[in-house]
């Protein structure tokens, strides 16, 4: 029975079905299935989609659709993980989001999905995210990496503000900060004291691996 539930959960993500994914996640909790296993099958599903995307067989709407499906199941599984005090083996925990004032989601979602497929545990805060929301999430998930996206020249300075907030909260030493987005350059990343920058989504995965030493 538990195999059946996990199979369906994975299938729902692969088929971009957010409602089904949430419903199978609830079922998994009801049936007391190990939430880490549930997270693993969703990650497998995302990896499958990410591979297809890498090979040029699948496209952005597929990548984003699968990410959405996983996002809809995540809070249910996370709640269960928290309740059980379980721990998941992964390359690292990442909090990602597009900064405040900026509503561009494509690049951020691509990176988040490929990071998930690459073996990280990713918490996507979405777009137009305020500095305090990032801080709160880092604390909550005990994240080791903060990934920030800003597409517009106007919103790039927001990344600097977030780094300042990390320092103020005494979190700067615990998290590596990686930045990206259309308006960001290596010089800018250096100037605001970020730990890394990469202009492409697959490059961001490599960067995250190097930041955690893997």
């Amino acid at each position, binding site marked *: 029975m538990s195999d059946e539930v996990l199979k369906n959960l994975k299938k729902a993500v692969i088929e971009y079905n957010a409602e089904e994914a949430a419903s199978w996640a609830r079922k998994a909790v009801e049936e007391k299935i190990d939430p880490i296993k549930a997270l693993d099958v969703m990650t497998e599903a995302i990896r499958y989609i990410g591979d297809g995307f890498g090979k040029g067989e699948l*496209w952005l709407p597929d990548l984003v659709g699968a990410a959405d499906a996983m996002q809809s199941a995540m809070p249910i599984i996370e709640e269960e993980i928290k309740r059980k005090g379980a721990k998941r083996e992964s390359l690292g925990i990442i909090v990602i989001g597009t900064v405040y004032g900026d509503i561009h989601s*494509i690049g951020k979602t691509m990176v988040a999905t490929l990071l998930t497929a690459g073996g990280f545990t990713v918490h996507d805060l979405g777009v137009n995210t305020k500095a305090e929301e990032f801080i709160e999430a880092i604390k909550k998930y005990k994240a080791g990496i903060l990934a920030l996206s800003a597409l517009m020249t106007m919103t790039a300075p927001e990344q600097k503000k977030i780094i300042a907030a990390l320092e103020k909260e005494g979190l700067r030493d615990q998290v590596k900060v990686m930045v990206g987005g259309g308006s960001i350059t290596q010089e800018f990343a250096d100037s605001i004291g970020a730990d890394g920058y990469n202009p492409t989504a697959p490059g961001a995965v490599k960067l995250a691996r190097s930041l955690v030493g893997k």
Partner: protein
Amino acid sequence: MLKGFTRKFKPLEILTEEQVEAIHRGTLEILENTGMTFYHEKALKLFEKNGCKVDFEKKRAYFPPALVEECLRKCPSSFHVKARDPKSDLIIGGDTLYFTTFPGMRTVDLDTWESRVPTKKENDDAVKVLDALDNLHKILCYTPYFEVKSIPPITAIPESVAAKIRNSTKIQLTGYSKDCEIFNIKMAISAGTEIFGQCCASPPLTYYGDAIESAFRFIEAGFPLHISTGDVFGGTAPATLAGSMITNNAEIIAIIVLTQLIKPGTRVVAADFVFPQNMQTGSPAFGAIGCSLHHVMFNQIWRKYGIPTNNASVGVSSSKKIDFQCGYERAILALLSALSGGNIIQLHGGIHGELTYHPIQSILDDDIAGMIGRFIEGVEVSDETLAIDLIEEVGPIPGFYLNKEHTRKWWKKEQFVPKAADRLTYPEWMKKGKKSCLDYAKEKMDEILATHKPIPLTEDQDNEIERILEEARKYYQERGML
């Protein structure tokens, strides 16, 4: 006045009347029931005063169809725009086609094809080249470059407007950002030219405050307005062409309503600036045939509305080089826009995806514009062109036409001879060093820069431009933005 090109045959249309109607009804439906967000209090109040339902908390306006259609009717179907030299005036609309530029953030190195920030001189030179090109009638905003060495981003637009006023007599379109339109308008007035103002939506269905403020300022100055959206279909608009036409048109029409409420009869151009979503990279798909399908539908619908059109997504390739792909993409897009009755086509100079521009490209594009222009002027059919008597006189082989008076008289009218194309035979081409269009364009650029002198401003005017730029710098310094 610049006469541009006049289409002598019916425009290419791809929608049936019923399909045009279905898109129009859908547009009215969205305007009335989904509404549009305006981050601008004054605009919301104006809409409310004129019968729109307004949700001030959500900053959302809902437009009654009667108001929409009334405002569309108030826009002139063609209009005159005054340049600082009357020879560069334009009459926009009807069956006339003008070409304008496609800007780029930076210039490109022609050996490595990597982008780099241009110098101020390169920016000025690129404007001079545009001034010299016969088939370029209007210059777009941020053209040629958005980024210029030694110019801070905050004054980039006023500096760009000044460079264009100084180095060309052609009409220009100008942008807005952080109040810079105040200075743009002042410069135009002092040089005795009209300029196009701009107002851009942030799709889906949203207008930010600075776009609306800019519309108010340009209209109050009595200038015409260029309205565009920037929809990416599959991203910020529905993935279908028909659906994205609805959101795009709803966004443009909402501003048309605003313009006609601010000042009835305001001259507007509806610009179609849309791209399919590149489903591999997440950026817009430049040089895609979807742009043309969208432009052709757009031109058909807006012809019905009686409002002049600008086709914006043309002079921008997905290629990074001036190569085969760059050639076929823009040629297909430009031709389809011209055939379907676009009034202004953004062609000259843009290379990759709003990121790069080069004057060499603008020279090459001038030949594409010339070819297309010649095509839409069609074929003259008269006793003299049919030449039946001549054909009877020449007869079968060894009859020959090259030596006839009729050929000397007509061939130049019938043919178009490009200026920067390789037209040699193989042996001549080998003998002359295997030159390509790129080599010819470089020669042409050197020639223009050495010989073409744009009509200068009077000394007083030039001083006044400098004074306004200084005023702008002071304005931003005082606000801690410079």
